[in-house]
């Protein structure tokens, strides 16, 4: 995953880490998929690109994002020490998608180190893949604090914002129901997906299927509260970005958000409880905005700092050659 001309939002975290590692003086060669098309064959294409790149570049370390298929392809394409970041779906697929467990175990055995984007994900990975125990560290992809800056609060009734795909996992229908129970303000969904028709036509709710990636900070600035009450959120990148903009959040308590959302800057909710979700919206709207505690929490996840931590893992992996 990497931002491309037709998918500028794809793997933005990879591109920002890439920039940060280059700024720290490292040479990087990329083997990436920068579009969404291509079906399952695109992973074979990635393996071939990685193999070509590794032959040409002769890396000290190969760093892949997502265990399978990307980490698998990287592990086959080069004999250099492998570091892989697990992001969530790759771990969820273990045991859920036939054949993935064995390939994930191979990838993790092959890896010198595994990075999980939250401690929640580390625990899930280590429970499913015993080979990950003792070699998995927690480092999230971080947030670009220059790009996501604190902005003044919008005027008027509370504006709620949900960034992400309109899917079951993102719990968007319950969020819409909770908003209706709250009975004030407006709710904007930025994203598209199979549940779009379940959200359309509801009073006070707007759906913006597509927003240029560079406009996301401005969208967050127009909101008073950013909501991500997903059924499970391995990290919650949109929440980190919202906190960086000084916005209070309503976040799922399942997954990574409890690790970085402080009570002064957000409300953690049971994603299945619509009443609790409605109360969470009201409580978050009453929090300070802009919210100093939110920005302070995000500053703990500065992408430059995270790149430094990843750099240390890559340096250690290099010595295992």
């Amino acid at each position: 995953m990497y931002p491309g001309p037709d998918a500028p939002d794809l793997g933005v975290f990879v591109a920002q880490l890439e920039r940060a590692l280059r700024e720290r003086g490292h040479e990087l060669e990329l083997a990436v998929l920068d579009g969404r098309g291509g079906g399952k064959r695109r992973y074979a294409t990635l393996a071939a690109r990685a193999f070509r790149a590794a032959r040409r570049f002769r890396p000290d370390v190969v760093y892949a994002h997502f265990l399978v298929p990307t980490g698998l392809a990287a592990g086959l394409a080069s004999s250099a020490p492998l570091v892989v970041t697990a992001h969530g779906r790759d771990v969820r697929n273990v045991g859920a998608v036939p054949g993935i467990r064995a390939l994930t175990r191979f990838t993790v055995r092959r890896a010198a180190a595994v990075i999980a984007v939250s401690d929640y994900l580390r625990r899930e990975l280590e429970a499913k893949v015993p080979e990950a125990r003792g070699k998995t560290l927690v480092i999230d992809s971080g947030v670009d604090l220059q790009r996501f800056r604190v902005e003044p609060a919008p005027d008027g009734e509370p504006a709620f914002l949900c960034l992400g795909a309109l899917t079951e996992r993102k719990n968007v229908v319950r969020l819409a129901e909770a908003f209706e129970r709250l009975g004030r303000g407006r709710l904007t969904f930025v994203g598209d997906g199979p549940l779009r028709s379940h959200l359309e036509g509801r009073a006070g709710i707007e759906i913006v299927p597509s927003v240029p990636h560079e406009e996301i900070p401005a969208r967050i600035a127009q909101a008073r509260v950013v909501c991500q009450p997903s059924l499970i959120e391995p990290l919650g990148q949109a929440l980190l970005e919202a906190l960086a903009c000084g916005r209070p959040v309503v976040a799922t308590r399942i997954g990574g958000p409890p690790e970085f959302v402080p009570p002064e800057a957000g409300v953690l909710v049971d994603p299945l409880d619509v009443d609790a979700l409605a109360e969470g919206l009201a409580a978050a709207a009453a929090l300070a905005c802009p919210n100093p505690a939110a920005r302070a929490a995000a500053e703990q996840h500065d992408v430059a700092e995270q790149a430094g931590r990843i750099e240390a893992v890559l340096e250690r992996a290099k010595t295992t050659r």
Partner: protein
Amino acid sequence: MTATAAATKIRVLIADDHRLFADALEAILTIDERIEVIGKAYDGEQAIRLAAAEKPDVILMDIAMPGVDGLEATRKIRRKRRATSVLMLTGSNSRTDVDRAREAGAAGYVTKDRIASQLIDSIVGLAED
């Protein structure tokens, strides 16, 4: 064994029950112009059938597959067609795996974590023998 004259590619069959793995192998091997992947089998039975039908020069055989595993498939293939060499793909270079592969008739083995550095050379080496 087919000679590796410039115009003659080494015809390779991949046998691995993990499709993503087999697809990635195919993609990597296809980069080398000396090699042609003539098919993929996802279990031992299919490997035996494809080996008889396609007569590959080299088979990359996963040692562990459900049903007929790579060892049994290798025995059956080698019994019928000595001109096909089998390169066993193993999870480790444990003595047990290596010995079992040799006993089954494999000409060599490559551990899966050494594919990038060893697989193509091993295939070409077998084809040149």
